[in-house]
């Protein structure tokens, strides 16, 4: 079963092409890291795939009616925007909107999804705190929990671990990996190639307005790709403690 199929996707801003002819599919049980230098088009690709940006080509999600799309894929934008001082629990409850009709009361299944999202992100102590009073990292965890509560086969997140402390970064990546283990999938854009190499089952590299590489971390993080698209050299090794990736130096004028 395919969760997402993208083919021939091109995105233009004015006459300038940001991404050309991108194609990939997402199956169940995958944690895909979307990587690329600043401005490579990671956010643009995720938004276009979700139908939030006009694009040419095909995305199986963008082709769905909006309500159905919300049941297939959850989306966590990069801007951690919370407009009103609502409680954490209330914010996470918003994830259930696609599953409830207008004015419909919450069912036990909805409560269960919310409770498990709160538990997964370790937010039990924050449940009744006001979301706008939280620190950046705490808020990020709340927003991830909101995305989880939507309970979709596919979760897409734009830099979900930016701003988290190392422990929460690792926990969050493990959580996404856990989703993949349970047969769901996640696609996250990420700058930390070390965490990407350790936790993702698959990496997609964007560069030069194209999808450059798509495959297992070891196949994508090649010295050539790193030099050409990140202007770095790095140490990458498979160890007993798992894959270790450490950037070493800048190549040329970055």
């Amino acid at each position: 079963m395919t969760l997402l199929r993208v083919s021939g996707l091109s995105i233009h801003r004015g006459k300038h092409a940001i991404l050309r002819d991108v194609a990939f599919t997402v199956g169940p049980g995958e944690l895909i890291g979307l990587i690329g230098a600043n401005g490579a088009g990671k956010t643009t690709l995720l938004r276009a795939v979700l139908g939030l940006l006009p694009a040419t080509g095909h995305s199986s999600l963008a082709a769905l009616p909006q309500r159905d799309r919300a049941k297939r894929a959850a989306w966590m934008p990069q801007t951690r925007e919370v407009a009103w001082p609502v409680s954490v629990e209330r914010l996470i409850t918003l994830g259930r909107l696609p599953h409830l009709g207008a004015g419909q009361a919450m069912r036990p299944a909805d409560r269960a999804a919310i409770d498990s999202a709160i538990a997964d992100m370790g937010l039990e102590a924050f449940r009744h705190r006001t979301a706008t009073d939280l620190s950046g990292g705490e808020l990020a965890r709340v927003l991830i929990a909101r995305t989880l509560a939507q309970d979709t086969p596919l979760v897409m997140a734009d830099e979900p671990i930016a701003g988290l402390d190392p422990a929460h970064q690792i926990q969050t990546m493990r959580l996404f990996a856990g989703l993949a283990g349970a047969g769901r999938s996640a696609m996250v854009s990420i700058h930390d190639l070390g965490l990407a190499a350790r936790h993702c089952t698959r990496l997609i590299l964007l560069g030069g307005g194209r999808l450059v590489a798509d495959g297992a971390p070891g196949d994508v993080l090649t010295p050539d790709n790193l030099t050409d698209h990140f202007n770095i050299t790095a140490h990458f090794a498979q160890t007993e403690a798992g894959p270790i990736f450490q950037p070493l130096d800048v190549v040329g004028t970055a």
Partner: protein
Amino acid sequence: MIRLMLVLSALVLALTGAALVIGPANAPYWDSLSALVVDDGTPLTLVMREIRLPRAILALAIGASLGMAGAAMQGYLRNPLADPGLIGVSASAALGAVLAIQTGLAAAFAFGLPLAALAGAVLGVLLVLALAGPRGASITLILAGIVVSSLAGALTSLVLNLSPNPFAASEIVFWMMGSLADRSMDHVWLALPLIGLGLVLLATLTRGLEALTLGEDAAQALGINLTRLRLTLVGGTAAVVGASTAVAGTIGFVGLVVPHLLRPFVGARPGALLGASALGGAAMLLAADILVRVVLPTKDLKLGVVTALVGAPLFLHLIYKTRRQLA
């Protein structure tokens, strides 16, 4: 939440009763109410049915309109400073109404007046939304509001000054400050259909506004059709504000004060705030209209003066708070 709605409903009911029995005619309360129900052929029935009843109905409906429109605009722009009066929507509606009256459209066609005010309000909302952008940052929102209000106000003054009726020019105050004095059932029938339609439209925004707490992208990904939400918001706001302004002039600050006061009681949820603000707005305008009758019964004190005296200090406080958050 349910308790809040019950308390507000009881308040509205009590104030409606008070609005019906308080007035210069000073008849005993019980006589007034019985004259309202049973036509006893005395002038009191005339007073109750043709003066106090329409006034109370309009205060209720217009207060609900302004409260709900304020809550909806704030929810959509995610900014507590949005208010149909402050951002120029009411002023544009007043321009439409004045044009309809002075060109004779209002006399030629029964619903010409509220529909022209609605058209003015639509233009005002669209202009403000275009100028302020989707996120409605405070500074652009306030600036856009100033531009739209002053332009509409200036054009209203121009139209009234050009009128061959010497009284018209002195009525700029009414259009800018609003009043419910001497309204009749005719005005109720003129305003109520559009107000009803607008309130229903705004009430459908609940889910969308809740989702918008997370921003436009997240709301869309939660299945909210933003284009439809925008259209509903513009249509609903313009309908309630247009119809209200057409019969009562510009009454500011209700849409600012009421959502602000009620927000803590609904856990800051923008969707739940809609219904609460409708009730709260009705209560505020009924109270203000009772106040103008009690404080200066012979002076036709303008409603907008009372609401501004309450609202302007709160507005300053909000600006101060927003400024501190930005700093």
